[in-house]
């Protein structure tokens, strides 16, 4: 199969999976097989593209013109190929996890859940491979809409409110800011294709007000990047089932956002133009403030998922920061951060879900001593948290390192301080959790010494599918194995970061 | 110019404006539906008068044609028609689209293409085209005159009215009228014909309006606008003025407790009269 076709099929296969899931509505096993099958094929297809891109090719597909001069077109470049492969790979992991979680939790409307997932992954891959701003915008919007039913999955008042904020902010920013920005760019440059070196150079006055204004439209218009103050959708989206939070709100959706920011900075503005004009200077600081403020909020959240959500807001701004630094190292740091943070944060979310399924606990303060009965879950959590903080030997350390280099390159020494401070805060609010779980003793014990709440608080009439290993009361296997896998992935990426770095290097062509 | 004379000279316009305002005022200010329709009628009639007055020429007669003229005029027709056809001087206005080969498909039978008849901006046919100035300064009741034979001016165009046959010939005739022959002055028939059409439309509108008024009277028992509004408010909110409304008892947007629609499908007049919210 040629890489051109692989691009097309990598979006078509999830949609086939969509119909497969629909078809096997009444047979859960076949239904899940359809999801997993589609996931496996998609991963292979994205790997084909990844390989081709690594060999220097730029496979492309052009479908048809929707608006004159603007086709729906795809073109794989390193950044997109990495993001697509990451998305497809983690989709499989997440699907396995979903099966455990959704069944363990007896969720309703599981068919709808899996159907929406297929559309979401297809559109995330569409964003990844998009060859022009128009295509990116189209798939960006489809991604928003397809994830809306997932966010409101529970259908209660909280879910409705969360969904309203989710859709309101994401649609509001994309229609209100991103769309005019895209049209404006098209009007200025006469093209909207992603071109190495950017398309705006020479078309706008580098010192004029248009450039920073346009950059602002993109930075805030891409609501999925969750730059403060447009981040509230992300904590609100946590009403969704954990697999949604784990995959969409740690990988597909939010990464599509920062990926778009990065892609637009690199291929529309061009690193050079931004570096010369200094248009991004203000946004570096918005991102920096966003990093620190979100971390500060995260420290005060007792709900584990909310804490992780704010941590995500903070970590996403690293990517935006890297993009806005307008240096090669900054962009590389941002690009690596997409991959590293995806693995790390997904691990944490899946662990949070496993804790919820296994122990029905969602507050951090209730997790004392829980590590003793759920060592695998908390072990994975520990590794994931280390990666997020940026400690070696985990993948997460590289992007932090590169960002610091980038900040130094850009002469923004104060940013170095911000990055260091943020890492310390990460330690405080993330690493404290496994430490608490392993080393502190639980608050309550029943007479026979069991930890209260592992079985006792399960709703009456429900049997859990938990696998019991002696005294251990781990969550179901299907919800524990995936986070362990991603945690190991984070470990592996530390050693293979160099390969990824080389792979991504072409995106900085033309940068300093 | 004497301002008074200026005003008196244009008395037809003043009549038109006064009538128009009376009509418009009635439509807006009166709550009674019948009076509204009467106002509407006055309003329309004022426009009719306006049209008629611009077509009328002092001393002009109805555009009726004598046989003698007809024969002489028809005798001149052919050669000039060709002339006008050959000499098409296309104005830019519609020049860009009308010259394709398809134009031939729409020619009338005698081969006189539509181009020839529409693109004569540069020809003497329109010599009087600026007759608007004349219209503005024209004396009372005096419709604008263009050059004789100018079909676009208010001046008479006798062949139109009578020949009734081939329009192309008519057109050509319009060009070739010998001024000597046009002794009687004709009023411009076209505005009058237009207004005949408009009167028909006006009558139809009045009829529909009155029919609606009858139906409203059947359904509400009144044709006063404020009472109708009160009735609707009472049906919907339970009070005449929606500002006095208390929060609806059964949550918002509930279907009013009227008879279920199935019952209404019997289609008796009573339910028609009460409407869906009538019973509450």
């Amino acid at each position: 199969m040629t890489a051109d076709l692989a691009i097309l099929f990598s979006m078509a296969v999830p949609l086939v999976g969509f119909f497969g899931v629909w078809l096997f509505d009444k047979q859960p096993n076949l239904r899940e097989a359809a999801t997993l099958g589609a996931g496996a094929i998609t991963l292979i297809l994205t790997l084909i593209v990844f390989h081709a891109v690594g060999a220097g090719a730029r496979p492309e597909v052009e479908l048809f013109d929707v608006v004159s001069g603007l086709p729906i077109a795809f073109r794989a470049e390193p950044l997109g190929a990495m993001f697509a492969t990451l998305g497809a790979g983690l989709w499989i992991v997440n699907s396995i996890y979903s099966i455990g979680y959704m069944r363990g939790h007896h969720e309703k409307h599981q068919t709808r859940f899996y159907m929406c997932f297929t559309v979401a992954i297809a559109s995330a891959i569409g964003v990844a491979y998009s060859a022009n701003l128009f295509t990116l915008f189209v798939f960006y919007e489809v991604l928003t809409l397809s994830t809306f039913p997932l966010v409101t999955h529970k259908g209660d008042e909280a879910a409705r409110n969360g969904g309203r904020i989710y859709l309101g902010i994401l649609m509001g920013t994309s229609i209100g800011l991103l769309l005019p920005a895209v049209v404006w760019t098209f009007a200025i440059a006469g093209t909207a294709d992603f071109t190495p070196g950017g398309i705006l150079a020479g078309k706008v006055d580098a010192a004029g007000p248009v450039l920073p204004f346009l950059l602002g439209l993109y930075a805030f218009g891409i609501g999925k990047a969750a730059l403060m103050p447009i981040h509230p959708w992300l904590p609100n989206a946590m009403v969704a089932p954990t697999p949604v939070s784990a995959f969409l709100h740690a990988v597909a959706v939010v990464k599509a956002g920062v990926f778009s920011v990065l892609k637009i900075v690199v291929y529309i503005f061009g690193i050079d133009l931004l570096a010369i004009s200094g248009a991004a200077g203000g946004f570096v600081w918005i991102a920096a403030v966003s990093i620190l403020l979100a971390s500060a909020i995260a420290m005060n959240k007792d709900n584990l998922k909310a804490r992780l959500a704010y941590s995500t807001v903070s970590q996403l701004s690293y990517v935006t920061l890297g993009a806005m630094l307008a240096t090669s190292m900054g962009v590389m740091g941002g690009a690596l951060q997409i991959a590293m943070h995806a693995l790390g944060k997904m691990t944490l979310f899946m662990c949070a879900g496993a804790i919820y399924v296994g122990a029905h606990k969602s507050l951090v303060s209730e997790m004392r001593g829980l590590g003793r009965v759920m060592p695998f879950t908390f072990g994975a959590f520990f590794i994931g948290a280390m990666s997020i903080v940026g400690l070696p030997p985990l993948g997460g350390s590289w992007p932090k390192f590169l960002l610091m280099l980038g900040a130094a390159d850009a002469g923004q020494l104060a940013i170095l301080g911000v990055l260091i401070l943020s890492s310390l805060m990460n330690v405080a609010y993330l690493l404290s959790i496994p430490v608490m779980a392993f080393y502190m003793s639980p608050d309550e014990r029943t007479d026979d010494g069991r930890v209260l709440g592992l079985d006792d608080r399960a709703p009456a009439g429900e049997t859990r599918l938990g696998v019991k290993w002696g005294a251990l009361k781990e969550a179901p296997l299907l919800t524990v194995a995936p986070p362990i896998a991603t945690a190991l992935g984070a470990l592996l990426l530390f050693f293979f970061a160099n390969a990824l770095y080389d792979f991504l290097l072409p995106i900085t062509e033309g940068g300093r | 110019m004497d301002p008074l004379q200026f005003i008196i000279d244009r008395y037809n316009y003043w009549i038109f404006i006064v009538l128009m305002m009376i009509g418009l005022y009635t439509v807006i200010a009166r709550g009674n539906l019948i009076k509204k329709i009467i106002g509407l009628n006055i309003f329309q009639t004022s426009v009719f008068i306006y049209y008629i007055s611009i077509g009328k020429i002092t001393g002009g007669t109805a555009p009726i044609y004598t046989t003698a003229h007809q024969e002489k005029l028809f005798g001149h027709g052919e050669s000039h028609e060709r002339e006008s056809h050959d000499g098409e001087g296309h104005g830019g206005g519609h020049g860009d689209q009308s010259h394709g080969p398809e134009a031939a498909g729409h020619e009338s039978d005698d081969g006189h293409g539509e181009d020839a008849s529409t693109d004569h901006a540069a020809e003497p046919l329109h010599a009087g085209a600026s007759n608007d100035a004349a219209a503005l300064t024209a004396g009372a009741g005096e419709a604008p005159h263009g050059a004789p034979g100018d079909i676009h001016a208010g001046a008479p165009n006798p062949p139109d009215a009578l020949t009734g046959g081939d329009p192309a010939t008519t057109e050509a005739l319009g060009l070739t009228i010998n001024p000597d022959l046009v002794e009687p002055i004709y009023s411009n028939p076209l505005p009058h014909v237009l207004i005949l059409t408009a009167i028909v439309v006006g009558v139809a509108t009045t009829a529909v309006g009155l029919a609606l008024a009858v139906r409203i009277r059947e359904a509400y028992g009144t044709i006063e606008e404020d009472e109708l509004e009160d009735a609707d408010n009472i049906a919907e909110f339970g009070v005449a003025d929606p500002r006095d409304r208390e929060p609806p008892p059964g949550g918002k947007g509930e279907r009013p407790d009227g008879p279920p629609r199935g019952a209404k499908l019997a289609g008796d007049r009573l339910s028609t009269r009460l409407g869906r919210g009538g019973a509450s």
Partner: protein
Amino acid sequence: MTIADQLPVLPIILPLVLAPFAILLRNGRAAHVFAVVVCGAAFAFCAMLLARVTAEGVISYALGDWAPPIGIEYRVDLANALVMLLVSGVATLAAAFSYASIRTEIDDRQLPLFYAAFMICMTGLLGVTVTGDAFNVFVFLEISSLSTYALVALGARVDRRALTAAFNYLVMGTLGATFFVIGLGLIYQATGTLNMADIRAQLSAGPPGAMPNSMVEAAFAFILVGMGLKAAAFPMHLWMPNAYAYAPSAVSAFIAAASTKVAVYVLIRFTFTIFGSDFDFIDAMLTYVLTPIALAGMFFASIVAVFQEDVKRMLAYSSVGQIGYMLLGISFGTEAGLQASLIHIFNHGLMKSALFMAVACVMLRLGVHTCSGFHGLTKRMPFTAAAFIFSGLSLVGVPLTVGFVSKWYLLQAAFDAGRPWAGFLIVASSLIAVVYVGRVIELILLRDPPSEGLLANDVDGNPVREAPLSMLIPMWVLVGANIYFGLRTDLTAEIAGRAAAALMGGAQ
């Protein structure tokens, strides 16, 4: 002279002549089939016309073989061929759609009359569009308006407010038409002709500076007000929400898509073909009158729409707002703006018609068109719910739908015209559309259907079923069109682009 030469007149003459026969049928079902066939034939003719105009250029047809400018000319170019295609297409679908819905809303004996009025309404709208004679526009406009008043009033059996709505519509519509006629009178007095092309020629002839004089300017003002009333442009829209809300459901689906669009088309035709934006006063009028009207409509009407409990009224207010988009496109006075306007005329017809059809399905089963009827619709009437969601997203302007195409071109026109602020106002107002459409979609998706009370069951007391196929199929054809034309814009954007170029070229 072959029948093919008569093509421009066929879509007008056929329904006009055949409409009375519908009354003679005396049987609702037969009249329905008859109306669908006639409207379908008109649609086929319009499609052929469009194909021919695309291939061969402007068609001029002399009615009764009286050559223009004395005779009445039917002049078909791309702009009106596109509008005719929309009108006849929506009419056909609405006619096909109407039967199951309308027979529950009016008396059986009225059915043939309904279909006769429906056909005449379509004839009038097509006539307005096709004619190249200014006074003829008035005649056809009144033919369509009179039949529309009757159609709206037919809603009286379900809700007597239809009568007052129709009466108000009649008063406002007649005022509008009369203003229009005054404008025509002034034009006639100034130029001595009623043929559109000829008026144009007369206005550009003569010594420089002679035209336009104050009479011509006054004429344009009257025409703008008259057509503004018919088009329900913002401050002149008061007749519209009630007329759309209380008209029989199938009627709303048709007139919402067709009648105001035709009025906007007439405005475009007069502004650009007859007067032409090369006149300074037109330019000033566009900038200082039409732009504020358009913007006020976009915001005011959209905000009012947010607070409507009645979905049909909400859609009607949304139409006022959407008319604002069309007027905004016109007000740029550029080719791109005009193109965007024409695209939106076509696209908005598709989405609004589909939305009203979805409401009609709810009305059929539940007997209400308030928000309460939409609770949990996915669980009761999934196909209707999906149709509403898709066309609602189209109204918002989500990619892959026609609404997005409209918005894109409008934004592009705004930036091209050097008015980026207009672009931001456009998106700001479409955010309001997100709110009012999202509100209903949220009810559809996230609420549970009422389990007790009147709305727990359908109007006959049975469990709520999906709407019949005879309604679903036309509705989904429209929804399909919403998506198809959102992906393939060859037809709409390209034709609208060429039409806009021709219209603006006419002004040079």
